[in-house]
């Protein structure tokens, strides 16, 4: 069994290569077919002479034929080399790693709120299908699902401005606090260094973004959980269990719930992966220095090395999370074989 599992993981990892390659190719093509010369926009206001532009073009390798550019781009990817950011001049990989912890921290805390809350609401609604509790949870989650994250975020900020001005509006940590970074995950770092002030401050900064992002995710998880549980409860094997005289509580908890929640696992896993690629709107609303804002920065300066880096990094995360979800799936559902 252990061997089979290892083989399964190996095959899954191999299978991620075409997906990542495809995305890398799409972003390469999109970056090349869109109008606008990256070199010209890079030089910005200091519009240089034809020669200067040619020199820069040569130094970036943009004067070579497209297929050579493409091959060297893919070749470099396999060696883990994303090139240098055109605007910030630093290696893309370093930019990605300095921004990733912020995104990871936000994702972790949001999902920590979203998954239990969503599943709890879904169960509560499904148990009383058609009742008042069900109706209010359905209406509540539907409306929450329709509220854009940036609007909710801004309204929370307005509330803070008007009623609790001491509370931080945005960012990850107040500027006046000094502390040592180890992993870049501020909450974890402040625990590791035993810095209580930093710990409280970083948690305070997390509250608004986590409410904003967490409740969005919770709403969609709750809607899915409700639908799944109701569907499973209508299946024949549940009726058979009931006919055999099994108490309703055990029917629900032991027979219906596990089967209904397996698809939620997949969904939550994919959503986590999506968030880890950077929640652009939430990060922008709260000036959260994560991958989403890095991506926006890259796009607005047409820094194509950085854009390609962000997208490929994102694809890697998605594939990795997919792999983990598949393995978990096989663990919790005995019908699935490797």
């Amino acid at each position: 069994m252990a061997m089979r599992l290892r083989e399964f993981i190996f095959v899954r990892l191999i299978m991620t290569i075409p997906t990542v390659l495809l995305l890398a190719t799409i972003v390469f093509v999109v970056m090349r077919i869109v109008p606008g010369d990256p070199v010209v926009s890079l030089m910005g206001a200091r519009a240089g002479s034809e020669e200067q532009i040619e020199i820069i073009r040569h130094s970036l390798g943009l004067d070579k034929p497209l297929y050579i550019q493409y091959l060297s781009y893919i070749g470099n990817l396999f060696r883990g080399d994303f090139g240098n950011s055109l605007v910030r001049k630093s290696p893309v990989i370093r930019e990605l790693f300095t921004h990733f912890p912020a995104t990871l921290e936000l994702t972790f805390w949001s999902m920590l709120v979203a998954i239990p809350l969503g599943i709890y609401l879904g169960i509560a609604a499904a148990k009383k299908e058609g009742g008042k509790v069900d109706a209010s949870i359905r209406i509540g989650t539907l409306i929450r699902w329709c509220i854009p994250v940036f609007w909710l975020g801004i309204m929370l900020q307005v509330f803070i401005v008007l009623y609790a001005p001491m509370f931080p509006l945005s960012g990850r940590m107040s500027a006046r606090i000094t502390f040592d970074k180890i992993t870049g995950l501020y909450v974890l770092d402040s625990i590791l260094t035993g810095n209580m002030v930093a710990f409280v401050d970083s948690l305070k900064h997390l509250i608004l973004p986590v409410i904003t992002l967490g409740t969005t995710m919770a709403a969609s998880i709750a809607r899915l959980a409700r639908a799944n549980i109701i569907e499973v409860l209508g299946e024949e094997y549940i009726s058979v269990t009931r006919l055999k005289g099994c108490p309703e509580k055990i029917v629900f908890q032991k027979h219906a719930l596990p089967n209904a929640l397996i698809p939620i696992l997949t969904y939550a896993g994919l959503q986590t992966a999506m968030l880890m690629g950077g929640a652009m709107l939430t990060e922008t609303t709260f000036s959260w220095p994560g991958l989403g804002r890095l991506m926006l920065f890259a796009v607005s300066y047409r820094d194509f090395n950085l854009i390609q880096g962000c997208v490929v990094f994102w694809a890697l995360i998605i594939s990795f999370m997919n792999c983990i979800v598949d393995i978990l799936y096989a663990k919790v559902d005995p019908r699935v074989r490797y």
Partner: protein
Amino acid sequence: MSEIVKDFIQRFKIAPTSSKIMLITGIFLLLLIIFLNIFNNFFGYSPLKTTGDLFSKPSIEHIMGTDQLGRDIFSRVCYGARSSLIIAFISVIVSLTLGAPIGATSGYIAGKLDRVFSIIFDALYAFPGIILAILIAVMVGPGVYSTSIAISVEYIPQYFRIVRGLSLSLKERPFVESLRALGARTRNLIFQHILIYAIPSIIALMMLNMSSAILMVSGLGFLGLGLPPPTPEWGTDLGRGRDFITMGVWWASAFPGLMIVISVVAFTLIGEGLNEIIRITTTGKKL
């Protein structure tokens, strides 16, 4: 065509009250937004002209207050429905006209072609819509058509999937087989007989996509990648209003956002209500 309408009316009659309420509330909210947009001029303010009165609080004069340039927010918000709805509508239509016929053909013909299309659209489905939309919006520049196309790419695979699935199951049904035996051409079969059956599910999906497209339009506007000012657009107005919240000016961002929520809720309710009604069989059971 009239059969589909008759069938729908029959289903609507036996549908549970909750789906009826959803559908009717949704349609009501949508009509309200369209009404406010059309009769905007009768409320006395222009969405573009300044009243000379900056940041005035919501009052009887300006029920939603005025913004940083002294423009009446109520008038801007009513007018803003136009750009959001038009962009969302164009993008949904574009993805429908690309996704549905390819899906129908792919499912009907099956074989290798079907597999190739499925792989391509699955890859597109996996690509994050907002990243693609931002890339296209920045590179092509702001505008109604570029924004619509940027958004539409995300929905093409959805129509492909739903129509392909229907086409796969329909082609084995006796009426399609008998038409084929009578010598109907494949093209006519797909466009006149199979796609017609997909219309109810397509409409439900279109409504749900309208709601997510409106969210996307306003998201792009919020990031400053939407329509160029001074065109009133909910997301853009909201993003600009955000700069003034520390001064306590909440109305400049609150009301555009409220309109986004109302219109998204409207389309979601219509879509979900339709979906539930379609899934009922005429004997009153869910399929």
